């Protein structure tokens, strides 16, 4: 057969290839050009089996409760099955609740401070551990380990540590709002720096050697290399780390509950003001208060909370994404 003949013979096959599905492409990759995979047909039939459970779990575990949550925020209820629709009253109550607004600003402050500290320190540690110092693998493991401990346990452990120190000064973490704030920051740094560090290390390792070498040849000093080459190339890691630490900061609950639980509470004009209560804890406390309409209000707060965290997270993602460079 001549080459021309071959070409004509192959033509229909090529045309077929153009229209084939990704699945068929995949099977062709495994089974060779001219053979149809014996698996293609059964796979097409059975994809429901593989995707089904995850989709169902996602719908049952996330989509449905989420929609129900939105519906409940418009209801008065003691038990979910007895919810009565009341409209937007719960949202009005949520927005006029001074404690909710107070905890929002407190949470925002906390999120910003923890975002800065966690990322700066995690980057510094990651940078130090990619310089090739001895035992860096051991350090990575050790720094990462706090992340494996649950929030409630961490909260109680740290409350013991802080109180052990503070008792020498006749105070405790639940008596002093400044210590309450910084205690929580220290706890979160301790827990999250290791995690962010891993992401930064991966980012640092992905920076092409030739780029760094080129910078060196061009006469850039270490500081210039860091600012002009390393950090711009690290933007994808920075995006993900800032996103994680920002949303973690806003969503913080367990550690807040276990460490201070909102204490100290100061009476101002007869109204108790919880000095260290963050948004999620405020929602929780609202939900379990004695008022018969408290649960609807807490639910409305939770929906507002979701929109807030999602909006802030997405805004931050959009902003840092813009700064990312193509390698």
């Amino acid at each position, binding site marked *: 057969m001549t080459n021309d003949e071959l070409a004509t013979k192959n033509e229909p096959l090529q045309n077929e290839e153009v229209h084939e599905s990704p699945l068929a492409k995949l099977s062709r990759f495994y089974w060779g050009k001219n053979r149809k995979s014996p698996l293609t047909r059964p796979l097409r039939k059975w994809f429901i089996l593989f995707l089904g459970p995850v989709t169902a779990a996602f719908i049952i575990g996330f989509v449905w409760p989420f929609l129900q949550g939105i519906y409940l925020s418009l209801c008065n209820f003691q038990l979910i099955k007895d919810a009565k629709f009341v409209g937007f009253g719960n949202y009005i109550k949520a927005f006029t609740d001074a404690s909710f607004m107070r905890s929002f600003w407190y949470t925002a402050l906390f999120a910003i401070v923890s975002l800065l500290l966690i990322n700066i320190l995690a980057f510094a540690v990651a940078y130090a551990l990619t310089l090739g110092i001895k035992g860096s693998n051991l350090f990575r493991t050790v720094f990462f380990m706090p992340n494996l401990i649950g929030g409630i346990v961490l909260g109680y452990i740290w409350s013991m540590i802080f109180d052990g120190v503070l008792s020498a000064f006749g105070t*405790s973490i639940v008596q002093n709002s400044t210590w309450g704030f910084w205690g929580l920051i220290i706890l979160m740094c301790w827990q999250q720096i290791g995690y962010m560090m891993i992401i930064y290390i991966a980012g640092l390792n992905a920076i092409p050697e030739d780029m760094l070498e080129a910078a060196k040849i061009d006469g850039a000093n270490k500081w210039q290399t860091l600012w002009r080459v390393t950090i711009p190339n690290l933007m994808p890691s920075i995006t993900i780390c800032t996103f994680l630490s920002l949303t973690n900061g806003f969503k913080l609950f367990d550690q807040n509950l276990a460490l201070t639980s909102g204490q100290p509470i100061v009476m101002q004009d007869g109204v108790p003001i919880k000095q260290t209560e963050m948004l999620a804890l405020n929602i929780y406390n609202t939900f379990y208060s004695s*008022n018969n309409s408290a649960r609807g209000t807490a639910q409305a707060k939770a929906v507002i909370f979701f929109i807030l965290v999602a909006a802030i997270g997405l805004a931050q993602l959009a902003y840092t994404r813009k700064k990312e460079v193509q390698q």
Partner: protein
Amino acid sequence: MKLKRVLALAMAAAMAGCFFAGCNDDSGNGGSSNGGAGSTGSTGSGGGASGSVYWLNFKPESDGVLQEVAKMYTDETGVPVKVVTAASGTYEQTLSAEMDKSDAPTLFVIGNEAGVKKWGSYAMDLKDTKIAGELNTDAYNHYDADGKLVSIGYCYESYGIIVNPDLVEQAGHKVEDIKDFASLKTVVEDIHNRAGELGFDAFTACDMDDSSSWRFTGHMANLEYYYEEQKAGKTWTECPATITGDYLPNFKNLFDLCINNSITDPKELATGGHDPDTQFKEGKAAFTVQGSWTYAGDTNYSGSVPNAKMIPYYCGVEGEDKAGLNCGTENCWAVNANASEEDRNATIEFMYWCVTNEEASKKLVESFGVMPYKSAAESTNGFLKDAETLTSNGNYVMDWATNFQPNVDEYRKALVSALNTYCADQTDANWDQVKSAFVDGWATQYNAANAG
């Protein structure tokens, strides 16, 4: 390659496991008496042994006994009884979650005014039921605004100051000599001043962490509410919108005495962790602020200090030599109105059996202290006997006005925080914070709880 496949299989299995776990029918607990229900259905000997009981228990310290009693009942009648105990301090959360299930508790606890408002509509009217007919007092029952009998007391308790008479004697005093605040103060201060020489102190630690703060913000606070009630000339039947705090100086008297004459420095109380129960049992202190539930059970004061006695909260109120103990309860049974008729009947039968069956009521009374029912076993609780002796001597019983605390968790949290500040630095300004948390906090929480 093989390893990869095994891993993939494991992941898939774990995922499927997670998924199906959610759909799993919750028939584990209590269902261990499997076959019981089925076999009884056919052999039920005229006793109407159908339906089942699900008791959401409020007292963690009684869980063991309740499981035993439940098993006894199932063995005897074939009716399945499931007892689930909410972890300490999480009853409201557990109840909310459980009541939403199709297999909701048939027997649960509504122990105070706030509970009646919140859960009253889920409780059936117990008036004229078999179990209500067994009660020997109406004192511990809860009615709603329409007069429905929402819940009935299944045990009651008393609290006050528990004394180790041997230690008091060692210090050269007698418990009988303590008749009012002045005499209590004399003994307590003397013991505290000579603690080094005696080898024990006056009061155990007045810890303010969650495991202990209720002894003060819930129980000792009762003396203020009680005397306020008395001054107004009537017992509260519903939560008042405001309180006056007229008897706060008396609360302060006793509170100061406790924290300043204790093993533990008042500055260290906020953190807690000093284990006052053990301090008392080990004879490190002669006094502790506690209640009748410590007599037996896990705490078991009677095991270490067999002749321990409970005396009233002496706080400097006029005529307090006639004071008795604080008697009341938060342990009140309510039957789920939404349960099927079969289950409700089975539940009432079970309750009736608990208070009439000799062996069962003996076990329950040992754990609960006392059950206010005609045929229930007699109490063996020494502290409740002290309460009875005081009452029979003509002393007044201090009812649990504290059960009316509005938005109770939030109210107590603010009070704990203010007391912490005060303990760390006992100034007038800090006591004003306590006053504000006590009195203004009441009004604030009342409004919060009742706002439309």
